[in-house]
């Protein structure tokens, strides 16, 4: 089994370490590869788009052909996870910030996202949320987006107060927070279990 982490920008290493730890906990043999070039994602069983700046990550994955590889992985029904900036890039629609910056989205998660929904960095926070199928989870929100609208086939997995912060549409998992920043690998394990 091979899991790719899109490594163009953001907290790539944190996802690699979390995935390796999750594989170990699940006693699954597999490799985790961070990649900045095309050719790796297409040969993987799953892919993660990390946190970072969505404007930067979007620009780089479209320019270097990684975006097309993620889309073909999606067509094959393979699991795709996006955290924070990654969630934005997976979405079908964005708010005015996404439009203003002409951020090109992958459009494989039928949601509308709002960027920097809680405000600036001083409004970033940690809080406990209830994650469907997992339970209480300490989530780290950093200049985090939220999901404002969901399509029919989208499951809401977690909310913070009344705001949607985790969703799943079949093989696509989108999180507004950063499970890769804490030691708790339950969400990464949940993602790995999505791999058939």
């Amino acid at each position: 089994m091979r899991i790719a982490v899109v490594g163009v920008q953001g907290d790539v290493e944190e996802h690699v370490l979390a995935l390796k730890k999750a594989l170990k906990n699940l006693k699954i043999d597999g490799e985790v590869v961070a990649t900045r070039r095309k050719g790796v994602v297409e040969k993987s069983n799953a892919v993660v788009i990390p946190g970072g700046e969505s404007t930067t990550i979007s620009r780089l994955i479209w320019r270097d052909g990684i975006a097309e590889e993620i889309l073909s992985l999606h067509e094959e029904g393979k699991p795709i996870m996006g955290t924070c900036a990654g969630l934005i890039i997976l979405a079908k629609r964005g708010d005015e910030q996404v439009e203003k910056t002409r951020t090109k989205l992958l459009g494989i998660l039928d949601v509308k996202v709002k960027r920097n929904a809680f405000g600036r960095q001083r409004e970033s926070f940690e809080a406990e949320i209830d994650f469907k199928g997992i339970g209480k989870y300490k989530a780290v929100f950093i200049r985090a987006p939220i999901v404002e609208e969901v399509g029919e086939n989208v499951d809401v997995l977690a909310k913070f107060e009344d705001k949607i912060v985790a969703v799943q549409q079949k093989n696509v998992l989108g999180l507004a927070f950063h499970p890769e920043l804490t030691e708790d690998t339950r969400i990464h394990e949940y993602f790995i279990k999505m791999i058939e």
Partner: protein
Amino acid sequence: MDIEKLRFGTELVKRGFAKMQKGGVIMDVTTPEQAAIAEDAGAVAVMALHKVPADIRASGGVARMADPKIIEEIMDAVTIPVMAKVRIGHYAEARALEAIGVDMIDESEVLTPADVFFHIDKRKFTVPFVCGARSLGEAVRRIWEGAAMIRTKGEAGTGNVVEAVKHMRIMNYSIQLVSKMDEEELRVLAENYARAYLRLTNTVCEEMKLPEVCTRNEPVYEEYTFEEIVEGIYEVLKEVKGLKRLPVVNFAAGGIATPADAAFMMQLGADGVFVGSGIFKSSNPEAYARAIVEAVQHYDEPEVVAEVSKNLGEPMKGLDVSQLEVQMQERGV
């Protein structure tokens, strides 16, 4: 949801913010227009300034925090994070920037220091800080004070990468040595590094003609005694030893002027790059900004670095560091 469970400005939230910048380029800008160019080129954040370091160097005098109005205009112009600089040790400038909602504060040697003894106790703030460091000692002291990101000091405003390279090499070699030290050696090193906090105490004891020992149980920096500082520094050093790297993100800064400079700093192990005067003092800022972003992403692919370096026009004019009247890197140790 219980509001008490919502925690702002924790170490995890601050260091996490810095981690989101990894693999990215942070660009100095002085106007909303420049900020928009930077965002468009793929910058992960901008540093809002009154003047770029090359102009600060040229104009001399006291360099202070930028006009908050300019910073606010830049914050309104872009969706990416906006950072701004305060003078070393200047709590009031830092509180003012925190109040307007700057995403990260650079306690920077590029501005004229406000305190010859101490840096800001950054743990007391909700907003994360980045600080410059020429050596492991400087880095470890800043991390103990709560910095969420370290950057090389380099020599800002020179367009000369030599000092940034020097600081990165010194850092890497120091970490290599620390990773092989035993507990005893780490304790000694922690005490050596902590001595920098005794400058005020020593100055006063000397003036009063008192022996230094009279301050043994007195706080020497904020509420911390010397023993507590040694202990804190020791804990940071243990983390460095375990991780074989700094426990926070480490960027390159100070003198990076070309795509190849940026790629070189990444090859030396930088987590990302600050470009100060290099972009808006070049003949074609848009092209330079895009090229440096691409060179950072593909730092290990020489063909890409060569390709993006073509037809960029004139880089900023560089300065020989040995001929400088002011070495900004010597500020704040």
